[in-house]
């Protein structure tokens, strides 16, 4: 109970902290300035009769927002959000569930590493998108093949990070634990696992970014069939094909937002799981 008081105080002051946080406002100002410059650049022609290169061809933010308001009322747009998110989530989760134990096993067992590392290293440089044709043939549904390439996008990064992180744990921790009577299992659970946690989160954050890249490309390539249709990637592609450029920008920004939400979630989880890193 004694613990409860400081905790509530902390969460109360969190919003206050955000409002008085210079970094937060710096970010807000930066985004506003960016939007203003974009608006001016895009409106240049209308205002001054001469078109700015590049920016001039793009719809101004005010138009984009207007279109967004419209698009936001169509269930198809939100369905695309949902479909892409599910694909990212499933692929990413599978990559974590398989990648973390796989990386750890390679880190702690030299036979396992000897057998699986070489094929892994040969497969790793193949871009996930190169798998598209093969996976369309291989998996029964387009949906599954998109999820599969999303999985691949995150898998390699996660494995490499876990492997690297686990291998670079200071031998001193292992020795200290051994001289206190730790068994092999203790070493694994009490030293290697927590010691690898920071690398797991790094891998997850990077992997999540790749997952969004891959899912969009997968959606664009697989086309809007009934099975694998929809998704933000298809939304962009469809808009482009239909010549609705403003909607393309809406799609692009949606992905940016989706990616930002995902990486914030991972950062938050890292924060919760690694209290010892909180003071930075």
């Amino acid at each position: 109970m004694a613990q409860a008081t400081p905790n509530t105080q902390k969460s109360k002051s969190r919003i206050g902290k955000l409002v008085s946080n210079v970094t937060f406002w710096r970010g807000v100002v930066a985004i506003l300035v960016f939007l203003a410059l974009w608006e001016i650049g895009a409106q240049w022609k209308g205002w001054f009769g001469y078109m700015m290169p590049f920016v001039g061809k793009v719809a101004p933010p005010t138009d984009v927002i207007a279109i967004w308001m419209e698009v936001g009322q169509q269930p198809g747009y939100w369905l695309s959000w949902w479909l892409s998110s599910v694909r990212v989530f499933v692929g990413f989760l599978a990559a974590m569930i398989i990648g973390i134990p796989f990386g750890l096993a390679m880190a702690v067992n030299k036979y396992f590493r000897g057998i699986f590392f070489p094929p892994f290293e040969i497969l790793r440089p193949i871009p996930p998108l190169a798998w598209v044709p093969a996976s369309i043939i291989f998996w029964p549904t387009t949906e599954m093949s998109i999820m599969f390439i999303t999985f691949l996008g995150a898998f390699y990064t996660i494995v490499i990070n876990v492997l690297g992180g686990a291998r670079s744990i200071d031998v001193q921790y292992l020795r200290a634990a051994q001289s206190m009577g730790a068994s092999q299992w203790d070493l694994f659970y009490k030293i290697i696992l927590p010691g690898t946690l920071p690398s797991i989160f790094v891998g997850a954050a990077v992997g999540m970014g790749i997952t969004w890249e891959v899912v969009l490309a997968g959606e664009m390539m697989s086309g809007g069939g009934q099975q694998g249709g929809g998704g933000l990637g298809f939304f962009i592609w469809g808009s482009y094909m239909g010549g609705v450029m403003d909607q393309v920008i809406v799609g692009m920004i949606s992905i940016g937002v989706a990616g930002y939400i995902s990486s914030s979630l991972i950062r938050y989880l890292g924060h919760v799981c690694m209290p010892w890193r909180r003071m930075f």
Partner: protein
Amino acid sequence: MTETSILMEVKNVFKAFGEDWEREKVVENLNLDIKRNQLTAIVGPSGCGKSTVVNLLAGFESPDSGQIMMEGGAVSGPSKDRLVVFQETALMPWLTTYQNVTFGPKLRGDMPARSLKEAADRIIDTVGLREFKDKYPLQLSGGMQRRAELARALINQPLVMIMDEPFRGLDAMTRQLMQEFYLRLCEEEARTNVFVTSELEEAIILADSLVVLSNRPTTVREVIQIDLPRPRNLNMLSSPEAYDYKRHAMEMLHEEALKSFSGTESGSDFLKSYAQQP
């Protein structure tokens, strides 16, 4: 009188590192006795192989030839009986001070929860870290980290405590405080202790017996019994007896340290120019 029979015995130990052509002998023909309830201090020139000796004693490394015996059995790997405090801080960064201190007993499950908590609180008090109990290692100063590490080691009550330059890297003031603190700790409760250091004065004031190692490949140059009265304090370092020990050991250490210089060309140049100075 406390019992001072031999607990650990190092017999003709030889250890080298590396593959054939660049094989480097680090320990050669090492013979050493560690007596029960005594503090055996080991000094040697920098880089002579002190940490290697620690790793051999602890069982992290095994000798290429020779034997390390403990209570009649050969040491064949790390064990909770020989606890090591490392040269570099090895507190687990992901555990708080309290969790670090209770790490060993929790792992082995050899202490009932209630008495573990009491013992941990007592030992954390002893090292003066009560207010830092729930802090993580990175939130502690260098001196506090060393004390937390001492607490983590002491709670396990190992048969031998092996400490590898535990106070290295601390500033002079903190180091002195740690030495006084450790001296008190050792005199309150007898324990078997191997204390490796490159600070001669630290070794003399703490030690019952002082082992001087030679340069690499290292071997025992001499064992000196330190008969300063107990309880000791740092002021005793200015007594004539302490001064004699110090001068004697210093001469040997100096000779050994010079060997590593004269081994190289630039080293002998350095020595020559040093000798020519007025």
